[in-house]
């Protein structure tokens, strides 16, 4: 009996050892599974980062391609301009060349005649070629040829030829002739459909090129134009619309995601916030634009000849309509380059300034273009000042509208999404409440995760059945029952230990997540507060724009004249 018992005890120890080994193996497997779980979570996180990087790469690649395309296209457009209209340049250069040569009488009459006649052959259809023949003939006192060439130039482009000879007459101090040419020019103009080159006339007026009589005449004509335009229905509204677009064209197109990293990542409101911030940037940009126009002295041209030559050069160089389609293409390419390949932003800017590249515009649009897009309208700073002063009231009203629209578009509250939780804040005043809500949400996630990690019915059944088998087998020393019973009990405790470990892991994971989410929320709210401050700073610049416009007084626009007279323009 005792021998049997020893054997039985020895056998039980063997079984126990086996079960201990299994338990150890199960623990190892459990650790491995947990490791795999962590790896999976890590991989998911990396995959999300990779997806984000990939999206950014695609966007950057598309922009780089657009940029490259725009640069290539711009070169092609410029080559096309050179090929198609390059020979115009030779003609253009000679316009002021002939006048300056005649000033100092160092070129023989025959040379001028021969040069202009050659230009006539080289530039068919171009209005300036016969105009230069007429100019050469006039200098050489050949009235018959001058009349004939002039008739041809007028036939090719009446308005430009008329303006050209008005300026040439002014250069030669022929006041009566200048007046006659200008009368002719004005007679052809419809203030609602002006050719772009009229800005040259405004330049001449604003820079004091004309004598007192002519200047008064032009001033009264431009005032009559404005009066005529203002009689039309919807005129004032049109001015506001024009200036609204002109002011909005100065809005920066920056992505502030680098400065507001948390909002860019966690707020669905981010795009609206970024757009609002850019819109608020209009004030500083407009302020800078007007300051550049009004600050400092404009150095006057040394004499009337230089002043008129500059105007003539501008007139013959920049306003040929047949070049316009290519000039528009070139401008769009330039804007795409300026916007670093962001085609949509470039097209939006182009839409706002495209009126400056229209063939015909009304007088007030011409003033708007001259004031706001001098590089496209080819206007001088004198003209910018003059145009701004004339349009002051419309600018103020349009700026008021733009300012109000920008303020109205500011998102009143900012949504923040973190780990599936969502909350809104106006300016971070409810941070505590949001933090509580977020903590509660993550606690909820944790509870859900812990809910599945508990000792189940099977485990309890194994414990009960195992215990019963042990109680049943021990008195009779039934090894089979005892083995099964011990197995059930051990399985229960092993599983419970594993679950406790897993629960501890979940607790730790969610504690870390909670801390991380709290930090993200805190950082996002801090950025909301900073965003509101920055917006307020930018918005405050609106008052500076209004003050600057209010300060524009007529006395600022006393124009110097080459006739030693002065005139208040506005």
């Amino acid at each position, binding site marked *: 009996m005792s021998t049997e018992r020893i054997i039985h005890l020895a056998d039980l120890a063997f079984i126990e050892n086996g079960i201990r080994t299994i338990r150890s193996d199960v623990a190892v497997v459990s650790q491995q599974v947990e490791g795999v779980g962590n790896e999976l979570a890590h991989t998911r996180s990396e995959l999300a980062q990779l997806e984000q990087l990939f999206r950014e790469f695609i966007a950057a690649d598309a922009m780089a391609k657009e940029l490259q395309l725009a640069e290539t296209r711009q070169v092609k457009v410029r080559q096309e301009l050179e090929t198609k209209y390059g020979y115009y340049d030779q003609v253009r250069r000679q316009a002021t060349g002939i006048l300056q040569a005649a000033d100092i009488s160092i070129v023989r009459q025959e040379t001028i005649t021969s040069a202009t006649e050659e230009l006539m052959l080289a530039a068919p259809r171009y209005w300036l070629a016969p105009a230069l023949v007429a100019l050469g003939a006039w200098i050489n006192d050949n009235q018959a040829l001058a009349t004939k060439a002039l008739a041809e130039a007028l036939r090719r482009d009446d308005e430009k030829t008329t303006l050209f000879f008005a300026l040439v007459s002014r250069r030669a101090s022929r006041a009566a002739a200048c007046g006659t040419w200008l009368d002719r020019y004005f007679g052809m103009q419809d203030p609602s459909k002006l050719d772009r080159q009229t800005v040259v006339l405004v330049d001449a007026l604003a820079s004091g090129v004309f004598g007192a009589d002519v200047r008064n005449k032009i001033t009264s004509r431009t005032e009559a134009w404005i009066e005529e335009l203002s009689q039309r229905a919807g005129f004032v509204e049109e001015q506001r619309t024009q200036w609204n677009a002109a002011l909005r064209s100065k809005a920066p197109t920056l992505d502030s995601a680098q400065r507001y990293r948390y909002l860019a990542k966690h707020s669905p409101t981010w795009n609206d916030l970024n757009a609002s911030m850019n819109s608020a940037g209009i004030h500083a940009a407009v302020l800078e634009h007007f300051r550049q126009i009004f600050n400092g002295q404009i150095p006057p041209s040394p004499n009337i000849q230089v002043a008129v030559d500059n105007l003539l050069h501008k007139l013959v160089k920049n306003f040929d309509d047949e070049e316009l389609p290519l000039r528009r293409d070139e401008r769009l390419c330039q804007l795409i380059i300026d916007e670093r390949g962001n085609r949509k932003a470039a097209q939006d800017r182009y839409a706002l300034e495209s009126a400056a590249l229209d063939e015909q515009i009304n007088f007030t649009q011409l003033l708007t273009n001259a004031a706001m897009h001098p590089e496209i309208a080819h206007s001088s700073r004198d003209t910018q000042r003059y145009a701004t002063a004339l349009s002051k009231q419309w600018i103020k009203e349009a700026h*008021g509208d733009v300012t109000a629209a920008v303020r109205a578009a500011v998102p009143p509250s900012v949504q923040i999404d973190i780990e599936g939780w969502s909350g809104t804040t106006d300016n971070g005043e409810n941070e505590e409440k949001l933090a509580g809500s977020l903590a509660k949400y993550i606690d909820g996630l944790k509870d859900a995760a812990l809910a599945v990690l508990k000792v189940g019915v099977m485990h309890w059944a194994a414990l009960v059945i195992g215990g019963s088998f042990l109680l049943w087998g021990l008195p009779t020393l039934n090894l089979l029952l005892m083995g099964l019973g011990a197995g059930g009990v051990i399985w229960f405790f092993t599983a419970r230990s594993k679950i406790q470990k897993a629960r501890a892991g979940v607790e730790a994971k969610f504690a870390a997540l909670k801390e991380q989410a709290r930090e993200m929320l805190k950082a996002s709210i801090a950025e909301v507060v900073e965003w509101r401050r920055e917006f307020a700073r930018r918005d405050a610049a609106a008052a500076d724009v209004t003050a600057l416009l209010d300060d524009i007084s007529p006395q600022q626009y006393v124009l110097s004249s080459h006739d030693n007279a002065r005139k208040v323009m506005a």
Partner: protein
Amino acid sequence: MARTILGAKPTLDHSSASLATRGPSLSLSPQQVEARLRQQRSRKYIDAVTKLDAGSHVHSKEAVDELLREIGQELREVSADFWPIGYVSKCYLGAPYEVHSLDRTGNIICHYKAGQSLPNGMERARTIARHPQYAFIEVYSDKLIAVTQSGDVSLIKG
């Protein structure tokens, strides 16, 4: 729930002071109407509307009627169809109230807390109404007009 400040409940039976039923019926074109609405507001009108937040108007129906008469007087050239559907301005009652409104059709002055939506399309005026530069916002079906203390107006389409 918005806080209705008037003692009486909102009534659908518009009194003689109701802006919806008063005012001349002039045949101005939409452009002329807009030109009129673009004009500077009078001191009297601004004072009347800004008193929305003051104690004298919050309990007295007569006072509100007086205010509505003032509004009708200001926009007398314009047909009632083109008058504002309501007014929204910053509320100086203090937290938790943020803005208040005068609903023209119901003649109700209500004060709204942060996060509480304004009815009848007036919610779009909320953000700008909180800006300190504007005395109040006139709400129209197709636009907002922001009015400063000096009477200058700015128009926002939509």
